[in-house]
């Protein structure tokens, strides 16, 4: 599903984990119990990357997502991006 990404510097793993935990918990509580909204993994450049909890993504109930104030604070160390490069995307 088309969505924005949040890129955290490699040194900000704690911030990335906090953001991921907040969005996963919120999405599971409000839309899909037991689901894990986003992975957290390193991109080709060494950033920690997870999905942004906001537009244009829509939920399973076709609701446009909106960050809570806690999520906004947790995302302070990250930047929004339309895409990134994953390890392996250009290899071989």
């Amino acid at each position, binding site marked *: 599903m088309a*969505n924005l990404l949040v890129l955290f510097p490699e040194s900000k793993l704690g911030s990335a984990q906090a953001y991921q935990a907040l969005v996963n918990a919120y999405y599971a509580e409000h839309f899909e119990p037991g689901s894990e909204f*986003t992975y957290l993994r390193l991109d080709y450049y060494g950033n920690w990357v997870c*999905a942004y909890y906001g537009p244009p993504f829509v939920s399973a109930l076709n609701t446009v997502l909106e960050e809570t104030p806690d999520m906004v604070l947790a995302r302070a160390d990250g930047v929004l991006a339309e*895409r990134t490069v994953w390890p*392996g995307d*250009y290899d*071989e």
Partner: protein
Amino acid sequence: MSVGAVGAVGRVGWQSAGVHAAVRWNPLLLGSALLAWWSADHGLTLSGSAVSAWADRKHGYTLTQSSPAARPIFSATGFGGAACLVHDGIDDCVYSLAATGWAPTGNTGMEMWGVGQQDAPIVSDTALRCFAALGNSAFNTDMRQRRREQSGANRYQATVGAGGSAGTGSVSGTNFSSRHAMRLRVEPTRFQMSLDGSALNTINNAKDITATQFGIGSWPNGTAQFWLGRVRHVILTDLLTTDQAAQLTTFLMQERYL
């Protein structure tokens, strides 16, 4: 929500039990040569409009995506009026890490077919993008059907692991943008590829695949080379006879809905 036969009326999958009923040829008629068939007309589990699981029509082999943010979107009419999965090229894919037994391992021959739409722009996008991939997500021991930018053009490329190395080949001269029918035929000592029924391009290469994972829209393990575009069918078969291949080609060419 489980979707049993989305958009199937009047097209695929309407074989009747009636003796004289018209039956359109479809891959199920390959019989034992058909290993698996993921069709956008069948077997989808949706969460809203997003695809969380996709079951094949032959054995029910199921590919999943547990992360809502990485699920392809189902479109009932997005493929020239037919159903398809829409992949965003960022992280969307469905895959299984438990695909052992779905397809031959080692050097046993097999084929991978599909119909999809490739939307990565050539000017600004040079990423490798897998349509489907079987193996263990290691270049030397899996096989991939994918898009590759080559000399400023979109090309259909296949890679086939040979154990300690891998062979690669492309179909040159055909722009791999938009909708295409893809074929990758892998024999023990060579592989062949074709686009839209073109003559087979042969690459000598000893197959040695560890077939434990399978992915649509990414590497077999769902971690890289994400497809940007649409997926309508993905089919795994044993090595087909000339007649079987001709039937499947005809079917898939129609399924391009051009």
